[in-house]
């Protein structure tokens, strides 16, 4: 085990997979000479050359479509979107083409491609640059949606996504790139579709993924000091979703809070809440509680932005509501 930043863990995954499979290539804006807008691809152009690491024009629809076509032809493209906010321009190629070709062609075609880049709000980037897209893609059958919360998961899941035969949406975070965590030495992958219990507990389950995982764990710490034992479960992939793990944990704790950094309606948390309320109806002592960001476009001002985001204290409040404990 070594301590690595999220950025370096992703960089290792890209490096190893580019080295492993000559059919893989990395394409996106600034991924080459600039070493990546967020430096995730640092050094890869030097190491693999311009055939394998390609700087694209600012043409999201075009180069995402290029990737889909190349995947259809048997290559394994890794397409970096500078952020998922911009990838909206390419959504047609992702949901109308990549997600559907295997089915529409009854297996004649398949689309082994990864679209990856940062998702969610960083800091002071305002409304157009601070959005969450997990649910937007997870909605569509044919896609897989992966949102790692630790450097180790990021590396192992990105390697799995690159090897996966289906189109994978891989969501990172500007803020997390600099975060550190222990990463196994040597070759390993983390399976898509399998969640992990990140902290064991007995009183309440918190479901959280991606950047929110840290908020959940911080909240769990605070609650532990008050004698409340929280289990933090991380689905890691949103589609396919590890429902068994989530339900299993709630069966054990009897209470559930779903944490989400983004907007409160029609999001991932709503789906998880729906699953839990049905699967755990008989054992829940209180309804599933959701902790989310505010239902507003993200404001620029630091003070307002802080009010728009959930933090560990929101988590504490949510868990206490779920447990009917006075705050």
């Amino acid at each position, binding site marked *: 085990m070594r301590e690595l930043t999220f950025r370096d863990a992703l960089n290792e995954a890209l490096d190893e997979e580019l080295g492993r499979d000559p059919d893989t*290539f990395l394409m996106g804006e600034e991924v080459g000479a600039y070493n990546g807008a967020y430096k995730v691809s640092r050094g890869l152009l030097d190491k693999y050359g311009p*055939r394998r690491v390609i700087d*694209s*024009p600012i*043409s999201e*629809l*075009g*180069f*995402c*479509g*290029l*990737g*889909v*076509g*190349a*995947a*259809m*032809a*048997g*290559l394994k493209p890794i397409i970096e979107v500078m952020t998922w906010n911009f990838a909206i321009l390419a959504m*047609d*190629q992702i949901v*109308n*083409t990549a997600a559907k*070709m*295997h*089915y*529409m*062609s*009854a*297996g*004649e*075609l*398949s689309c*082994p491609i990864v679209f990856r880049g940062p998702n969610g709000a960083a800091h002071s980037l305002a409304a157009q640059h601070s959005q969450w897209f997990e649910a937007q893609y997870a909605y569509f*059958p*044919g896609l*897989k949606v992966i949102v790692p919360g630790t450097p180790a998961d990021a590396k192992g899941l990105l390697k*799995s996504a690159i*090897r*996966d*035969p*289906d189109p994978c949406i891989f969501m990172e975070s500007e803020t997390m790139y600099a975060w550190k965590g222990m990463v196994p030495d040597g070759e390993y*992958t983390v*399976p*898509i*579709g*399998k969640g992990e219990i990140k902290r064991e507990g007995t009183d309440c389950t918190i479901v959280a993924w991606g950047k929110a995982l840290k908020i959940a764990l911080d909240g769990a710490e605070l609650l532990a000091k008050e004698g409340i034992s929280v289990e933090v479960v991380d689905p890691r*992939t949103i589609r*396919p979703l590890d429902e068994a793990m989530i339900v299993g944990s709630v069966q054990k704790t009897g209470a559930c809070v779903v944490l989400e950094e983004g907007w409160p309606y029609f999001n991932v948390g709503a789906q998880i809440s729906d699953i839990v309320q049905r699967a755990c109806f008989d054992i829940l002592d209180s309804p599933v509680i959701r902790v989310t960001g505010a239902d507003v476009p993200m404001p620029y001002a630091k003070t307002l932005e802080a009010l728009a985001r959930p933090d560990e204290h929101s988590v504490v409040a949510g868990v206490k509501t779920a447990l009917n404990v006075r705050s």
Partner: protein
Amino acid sequence: MAKPTYELADKLDKATLVKMYRQLQLMRRFEERCAQQYALQKIAGFCHLYIGQEAVAVGTEAAINPDDYMISAYRDHAQILGRGTPAGPVMAELFGKATGVAKGKGGSMHLYDVSRHFYGGWGIVGGQIPLALGTAYASKYRGDKRVTVCYFGEAAVNQGAFHEALNMAALWKVPAIFICENNRYGMGTPIEVSSAVVDVYKRAAAYDIPGVWADGMDTLAMYDAVKKAADRARAGEGPTLLEARTYRYRGHSMSDPAVYRTRDEVDTERENDPIPKMRAYVLAKKAAKEKELDEIDEAIEVEVEESIKFSEDSPWPDGSELYTEVYVDPMGHGETK
């Protein structure tokens, strides 16, 4: 009728000329029966006929290699037949039967035959253009000397996807031929109403690639134009934007009565039909006798009739097919890795 001359097509051997005539007839008869079967409600949904445009598909097919990539939009019946896919599985797909090229899951707009390098069959206007950029990019990446032919209509040229794809295709000199089938209408809208530039080939200037136009009602003129573009692409000199000036005799789809154009306009175009033109050329070239061509015509009637019978007799897809082929590895647990 004075026999026109063609720089390259005049060198085609007799067998090829006869084959091209045969393809024209197959496409035409096949789709005439599609219209009939649609009326009988054997074919459902959207059904876009290619009737009138066959010279484009046939001239193109003769000018490229069987293993070159071909990608098209929803008006794709004739093009997949041109690749050599048997009429039966194509018709069966339109019927939605299990024996169709996509087991009935794709339908008229979504035909595929990877063994013959036909990659669809796409329903979002302009959406196939970046895909073609991708297959051409793959050829360049592999150095496999294959060319990608991408078909799209003149109205698709106003999609951002066209612009983004052509810039990258030109920038990276990928081996692609972008064939714009300018049949002058996008649904009911004439090109003059939708495009600031009606000479589609002129848009090539924005990407500094060759922009040319050819008579899309003349099979051999199409052959000449595509052959040049294909040679260029194969030689690594990059893509070409080729405007094929053609016309569709029928409405946009089976549900379009096409009241937006005059009977006169259609009749005038019909006089320019590619099939008699090709037939005359074949005879003038002594590539075949009248009688042989008549036999071909009859053989095709039978072939198409059989494709319908085949489709009629084929089973519907099994209910279990509903959930198959959504993913290659559904759980994503990596069993396939």
